[in-house]
């Protein structure tokens, strides 16, 4: 009858507790089945059935990944207890992989991904299908450029641009927000109007407007994206400053005769910084999407520098015949954004006091 009781009505109910924890033996079985079945399905899907219909191979591989996830989940819970968050750790792992491969892209053994003139004469096939065991694991595009390499260099551009934008946003927005939240009054009203005006432009339209006048280099891109993030940071910093400014330790510091500068730098900024930084992951994810959208429209960073957006845009014309040109960078991008969102949500849960109070 549990289905009809309206679980939310039971006052003792806490989200997640209802899920029946499996027994030790059940977990071991899941681990074994998932591991063997998952690896088998992936190997068959990716390497054995190379001539079969692509649809079946995709289904088989995805099924294998689900089984592998089940195995990992069971293993994690066996070792670390039933509160182990498999999805979160996989997300951290993925972000780390993307970050590291972007940082060390120049040292990785990837084929030519940027210079189309280099691939003309060396016999690289164009529009090659993905084959994990070849020199082009994710295939090649129309100019015989390596898709995996493009994804990795694209990750480098995306991460560089959006991390730089978030850094600028935190620095500028955080400063303005703390100052406005601390001094209040007319200054605060002025900042409020400024923030409202920045937020008055729909985000993508603001980017378009900036793209219409800016030279499209990565540095300008970062500045444009920072403009997008600044109002959010001003609001965050302002609210948090106002909350902390009311607290006893600030009063105590005032009573001891601290200067305003000391209060801001020694008492407020360290406290405000944590919740602000905890938003960084989510904002990086948003900015990655924004940057890719702009590149997709052809208004972002241009070829020969590959970005996820311009790779997808280049592949979209006949992607019914060559779907890997769209979906390889697309899936990489989706996983990255998903992982950043997941990590960001956890970070907010841990570090944002307003979130924790709920």
């Amino acid at each position, binding site marked *: 009858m549990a289905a009809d009781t309206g679980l939310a009505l039971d006052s003792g*109910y806490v989200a997640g507790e*209802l899920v029946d924890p499996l027994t030790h033996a059940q977990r071991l079985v899941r681990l074994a089945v998932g591991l063997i079945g998952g690896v088998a399905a992936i190997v068959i899907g990716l390497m054995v059935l190379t001539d079969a219909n692509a649809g079946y191979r995709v289904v088989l591989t995805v099924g294998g990944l689900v089984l592998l996830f089940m195995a990992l989940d069971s293993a994690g819970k066996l070792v670390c207890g039933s509160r182990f968050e498999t999805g979160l750790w996989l997300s951290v792992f993925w972000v780390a992989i993307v970050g590291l491969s972007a940082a060390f892209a120049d040292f990785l053994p990837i084929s030519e991904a940027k210079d189309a003139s280099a691939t003309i004469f060396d016999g690289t096939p164009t529009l090659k299908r993905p084959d994990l065991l070849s020199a082009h694991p994710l295939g090649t595009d129309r100019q015989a450029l390596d898709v995996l390499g493009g994804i990795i260099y694209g990750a480098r551009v995306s991460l560089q641009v959006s991390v730089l934008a978030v850094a600028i946003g935190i620095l500028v927005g955080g400063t303005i927000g703390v100052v406005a939240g601390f001094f209040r009054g007319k200054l605060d009203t002025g900042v409020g109007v400024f923030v409202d005006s920045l937020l*008055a432009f729909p985000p993508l*339209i603001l980017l*378009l407007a900036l793209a219409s006048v800016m*030279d499209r280099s990565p540095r300008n891109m970062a500045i444009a994206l920072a403009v997008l993030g600044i109002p959010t940071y001003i609001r965050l910093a302002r609210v948090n400053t106002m909350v902390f400014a009311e607290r006893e330790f600030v009063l105590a510091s005032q009573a001891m005769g601290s200067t305003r500068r000391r209060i801001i730098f020694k008492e407020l900024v360290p406290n405000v910084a944590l919740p602000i930084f905890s938003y960084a992951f989510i904002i990086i994810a948003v900015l990655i999407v924004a940057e890719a959208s702009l590149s997709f429209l052809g208004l972002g960073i241009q070829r020969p520098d590959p970005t996820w957006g311009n790779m997808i845009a280049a592949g979209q014309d006949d992607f019914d015949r060559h*779907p890997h040109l769209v979906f390889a960078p697309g899936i990489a991008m989706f996983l990255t954004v998903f992982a950043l969102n997941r990590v960001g949500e956890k970070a907010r849960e841990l570090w944002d006091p307003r979130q924790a109070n709920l």
Partner: protein
Amino acid sequence: MLRTIGLKLVRLVPVLIIVSLATSLLIELVPGDPILAIIGMEGEPGDYERIEKELGLDENVVSRYFDWLGSIFQGDFGEQITRPGVKVADRLKQTFPVTIQISLMGMAMALLIAVPLGSWAAYRAGTRFDRVSSGAAFGIISIPSFLAGLLLVFMFVFHASVPRYAVLILGLAWSLWLLWSAVLNRHDQARGMLLRAAAAIVVAGLTVWLANKWPSFPRQGFVRWTSDEGRLENFRSAFLPAVTVALTEIAVFMRLLRGDMQATLQEDFILSARAKGMPPVRILARDALRPSSFSLITLAGVAFGRLIGGTVIVESIFRLPGMGSLIVNDGVNTGDFPVVQGGVLILATFYVVLNGAIDISYSYLDPRLRRGR
């Protein structure tokens, strides 16, 4: 109340002024000589003077702003630089309805799908349905809209048989499950059994009908609302773009409503409704939905504004003649500033006014906010 509204309206004015100022001065941000940048390599003699005059760059900044604002109040957005003689206002008038239609359809779809799903997830919090739907929502939020659009094109245009068979199989499975639960009949009530059996037949019938009449969706070729081909064609050509913009919003709305609804379901009046023996669907729809929907309504308004700006992507994928593609193709790509300025100004003004209206309606909807400031 009037005072509150007045204060909120007054606060819109400086924002609108700054927005128009920023739009009008956009051209000042162009590095170097903007006119040379527009003309590019191949200009004719006289182009320089013409563009300079068209953009008003021969005057100083202040009078240029006021001239520009003045003519806009008279409905004159200037002429396109790249196509002399074509009025920007006419282009805006042609394209704005398309953008609005896609956003409205997307919005309606998002609400129609998200409200039942979110309510049910809250009611069954912690169960498999809740975990699967919340997880799916989290995943969908992470799909950038251009990727979602291309995925839909791939599935519904290039491989239309895949969703068709998926619908057929899932629908028949659902119908079989309903039949099975009717036969099993845990509650031992004749009425419940009959209802389930009837539902099973209806689901099976609908599934077969849908799979049989599966419409083909075009990748491009938008049919206008007012065209002679009829409304049905219009809906068919607008369906995939609308789903694309709706996807993210479905996920966002669902998560929000689930949270609020779960809080509402803890209240005493829900307990009393349950004690009276009301069926769950009635409790959710009649008692719990209204008090749970305040933040949803606010967010829906904000999302509508965001959609209007965000259709740029969808318009590019499906090649719709909307405002976004006007700004991108005719404006940004060719450096046609009157188009960029006009489009951006319209969209931003719409966005500001809409958000102001939501702010005001919010205090109408939620009685707890009416008093005080």
